[in-house]
């Protein structure tokens, strides 16, 4: 009945995983995944070129709209934004969105649950979230490689709308907020995608999220405009409520930092909240994956 199992050659030759070695090993796995994802993305680089240019189309409408708004009023600014500021703001949110938007991430996760390709990550000794992150970074890197030129061209033509270049520390804060917005966007959407373990189809959830996101992230208008609007909670304006939600860090914050709308302690505090949300969503994503796979494995698939 019982067979004694002699240790295989493989085990004998396997590296003994100390803590440091384990760390190096998972870094190596992750790095290889990144490189391979890069190669894969490069197969589709053509998609990006057209996609990038299309992204600038909606902004033209926005510029016309705000030109009309400013034409109808004698005021020089609205909520502290001049007409030039507004155009610069929209262009900057394009940059932010290039970091924080994750096209196809949630839907892709849900699809892999539905069609069963997620099984591969249950069978192989590899971390799915780590893989998704590598794939997304690769996706973004290829995107930036392709999109930098059109972005630079648009910014060059629109340079008149921008205030003088901010100082080094503001630029650093801008850079940090962008990197954090990438991770925030990633973990937000990945967590949404994990809902695919509970619902067959997450596209309507993702759509609802996109709507709220569009409104509250500052993608639609600068969030300073919410400052005077009551939130329903006594003494709290809508702007300060939104400040505690994750959305504004995926579009508004980096743009506002560049334009010098947020400074000093406010800036530090905003970055802390942003980093806090990254941690919260990373943990939420991990929990959703754990629970989801447990559920998946209990219900088959």
């Amino acid at each position: 009945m019982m067979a004694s199992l002699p240790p295989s050659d493989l085990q004998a030759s396997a590296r003994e995983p100390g803590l440091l070695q384990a760390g190096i090993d998972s870094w190596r796995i992750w790095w290889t995944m990144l490189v391979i994802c890069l190669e894969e993305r490069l197969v589709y680089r053509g998609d990006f070129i057209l996609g990038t240019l299309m992204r600038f189309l909606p902004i033209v409408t926005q510029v016309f709209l705000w030109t009309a708004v400013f034409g109808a009023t004698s005021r020089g600014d609205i909520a502290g934004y001049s007409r030039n500021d507004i155009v610069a703001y929209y262009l900057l949110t394009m940059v932010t969105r290039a970091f924080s938007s994750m096209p196809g991430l949630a839907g892709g996760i849900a699809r892999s649950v539905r069609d069963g390709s997620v099984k591969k990550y249950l069978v192989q000794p590899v971390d799915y979230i780590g893989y998704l992150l590598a794939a997304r970074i690769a996706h973004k890197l290829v995107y930036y490689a392709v999109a930098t030129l059109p972005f630079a061209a648009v910014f060059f033509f629109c340079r008149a709308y921008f205030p003088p270049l901010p100082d080094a520390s503001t630029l650093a804060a801008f850079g940090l907020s962008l990197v954090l917005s990438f991770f925030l966007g990633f973990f937000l959407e990945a967590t949404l995608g994990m809902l695919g373990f509970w619902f067959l189809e997450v596209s309507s959830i993702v759509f609802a999220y996109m709507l709220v996101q569009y409104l509250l992230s500052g993608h639609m208008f600068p969030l300073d405009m919410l400052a005077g609007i009551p939130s329903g909670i006594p003494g709290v304006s809508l702007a300060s409520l939104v400040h505690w939600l994750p959305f504004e860090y995926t579009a508004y914050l980096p743009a506002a930092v560049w334009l010098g709308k947020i400074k000093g302690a406010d800036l530090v505090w905003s970055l802390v909240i942003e980093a806090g949300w990254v941690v919260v969503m990373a943990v939420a994503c991990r929990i959703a994956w754990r629970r989801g796979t447990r559920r998946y494995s209990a219900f088959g698939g």
Partner: protein
Amino acid sequence: MYDKPEGLFSSISGLFHRTSRVVEALKGVDLTVEKGEFVALLGPNGAGKTTFLKLLSGIITPTRGEARVLGAVPWQRTDDFRRRFALVMGQRNQLWWDLPAAESFRLHKEIYRLEPARFERTRDELVDLLGVRKLLLQPVRDLSLGERMKLELVAALLHEPEVLFLDEPTIGLDVVAQHSLHRFLAKVQAERQMTVVLTTHYMKDVAALCKRVVVITHGSILYDGSLEQIVDRFTSHKIVTLDLDGPPAEERLKRLGFPYEIRGPQVILRIDRTRIADVLPEILRGESVRDVSVEDVPLEEIVAELFRSEAGQAPAGSQR
């Protein structure tokens, strides 16, 4: 690691599999597979074969029952365990679709923490055995199904798993590709003393590879034993085919008292195994027989018969 002696899979019993309503996908499945065995898991569609493989590879967790693979509980999915087995599903690919297989292999090297020299040696060996070296650098999406399956197998075997689960690996393949997979699997399994559990609907796979056959219907084991014994146990007769020169003398055939069928110049008789030796000379004497063959009932037929029978009505002694 696991140095205490243990059966590879021991005692998997009373397994449940839950969907929105409770479906007993597997119930009385009690199975032990020893190291180095090559086992075929047969059963009609929906019998629970794939569910069984999913359990053993830790993709699903049973509501009840237990299983040990290589001493580990599969659905705990520890990395140590996952480094020691592989699962290949004929209808699902693990290779990266848009990249050459060589890239997927490179990723496997890292995921399974393989020594570079050893990785290269194993890869070259497997690739040459299947004759797919020239395919390594082509994007997987450009390959034929057979070529892809070969590379899937290479990918699965790179980390030299001690246990391999194959879920319908030959599905949709042409005869040539099937043959080369058979040769390959037989050789690798024998060399490595790998334990393999295979599900299939092709009896050719079973005949070429597996000494032991487990038949599952309705989630429980109907037969567990050698391939030869299936034939012994479930058929009482052999098939005798006669090639005749002239038209068959039906009178004489009827007198023999065995069921027969006439197909053109051929007569096919189903004759009791114990009586073949007595009857055959008599048949050959009377007719102008050009050729004769005596064969077992084809495996397909026996298994189809087995699938049709309800678990409860299994012939005596077939349950383990």
